[in-house]
């Protein structure tokens, strides 16, 4: 019986400064296969479609259930999570390339530390560290929890930034994910102690103002975060904070 094969093309790069090339693979089909498991097959038998032996593909992945945010890559031209990119639902040859707006480390592994830097810049945390016991936090009503929960679903995959026309070298835009986290932590009864600092941070160069409202972020987000709503709300808060600071100066 002839084995069913799948065609996959991967944009490869041996290091940050190395040139990139496309490499084609033909691998045996298995039921329920996704792009990550296809690359696991390649790792098990690293031979490309012209029969040459090659190296396994380097990529980030972890949970394989779209919750860790590691395996974002551009698959058939769209930024998405590789673990939920099911082979049976993709047009072949499946073309896989690294996220285009983040520096390539190797093959499909990219450096997404800019998001970490941005989250730090807006203090995206609840400040509870101290030298004494602060006691139990304030109550969060279920209504507040329901509003905050969708925002807490962010997996830091960077898809929203990859698809954003404003997220690029020229603007240095902070991206939707960070803005959504500002809304999340500003709405938290303990987290909002840093609200003004977060809003002032977001009024800096590359802040909320760079959003062009193309709304790609909300379309691409694998976790369906209400990103445009967050951008709208946070921009209003940043504007009001800027006006307050101007009048109180």
């Amino acid at each position, binding site marked *: 019986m002839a084995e069913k094969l799948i065609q996959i093309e991967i944009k490869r790069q041996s290091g940050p400064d190395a040139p990139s090339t496309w490499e084609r693979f033909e691998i045996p089909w298995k039921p329920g296969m996704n792009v990550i498991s296809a690359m696991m097959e390649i790792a098990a038998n690293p031979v490309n479609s012209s029969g040459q032996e090659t190296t396994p593909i380097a990529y980030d992945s972890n949970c394989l259930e779209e919750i860790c945010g590691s395996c974002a890559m551009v698959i058939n031209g769209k930024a998405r999570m590789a673990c939920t990119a099911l082979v049976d639902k993709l047009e072949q040859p499946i073309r896989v390339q690294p996220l285009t707006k983040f520096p390539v480390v190797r093959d499909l592994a990219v450096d997404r530390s*800019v998001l970490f830097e941005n989250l730090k*810049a807006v203090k995206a945390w609840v400040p509870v560290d101290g030298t004494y016991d602060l006691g139990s936090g304030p109550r969060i009503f279920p209504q507040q929890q329901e509003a905050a929960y969708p925002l807490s679903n962010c997996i830091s995959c960077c898809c929203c930034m990859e698809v954003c026309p404003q997220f690029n070298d020229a603007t240095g835009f902070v991206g939707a994910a960070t803005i959504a986290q500002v809304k999340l932590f500003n709405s938290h009864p303990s987290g909002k102690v840093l609200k003004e600092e977060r809003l002032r941070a977001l009024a800096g160069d590359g802040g909320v103002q760079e959003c*062009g409202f193309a709304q790609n972020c909300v379309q691409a987000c694998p976790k369906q975060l209400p990103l445009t709503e967050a951008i709208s709300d946070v921009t209003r808060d940043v504007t009001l904070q800027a006006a307050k600071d101007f009048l109180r100066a």
Partner: protein
Amino acid sequence: MATAARPDAHSSPVGRGVEPLRAGKGHSFLLRKLHSLSGIVPIGAFLIEHLLSNFEALKGPLAYAEQVKFLNSLPLVRFLEVGLIFIPLAYHALYGVYIALRGKANVIYYPWSGNWMYMMQRWTGYIAFVYIIQHVIRQRFMGVSLPEHPGAAFHKVQMELSNPWMLAVYVIAMIAVCWHFSYGIWLFAAKWGITPGATARRRFGYLCAALGVILAVMGLASIYAFVGPNYKNAPDDVMPAQTRLVQPMPPQANLTVEIETHA
């Protein structure tokens, strides 16, 4: 690890890519918000005034001349022109081009409606930019000066639109400008936090679309007034007396006496 110096974003092993947020630094927030606001007030308000004034052309050359005369009789009109039109418009145009040039449209990869509108807002902006420069130079600063000769307004525009290429430019620019303004209102509401909800944005989108269509139809109708059959070959100046009737002439005798006294 706690004692180690925090590695700078740019000294990371890869150290390239998009720069992180410059928290609290720079003035781009103010400049961008001024750009956004100036598009609504005063430029958007002026656009509506301009389209309403043009609509008077449907009533004929005299009504159009009266409207031009009325606008030029507004108090501090030259100040209004420079302070509320030229300067905000120049700022909106130049900063807008700067914004557009820094965006990297990706509609080919992500052909979603919002993304299309993002790109269209930039292209209609470019069209408006080029069109308005020639429009201001040719209609405000070249040929008959309309503030002094409001009666010549209809004829001046009619001559301009008699060139079919220019007519095409006006039609395209009219649609582009109305598009840019109506989507601009929608963007303003979305970005300033007036319509954060998806449903609110959709509803407001219909409203803005309706406004855009109404403005564009009004604009195209006034273009038709100049090129249509109703007012063909309008006279050079429908208010030729305007410049002469400043004051009644003093009696001739008195004038003679004056001259004699001075002599």
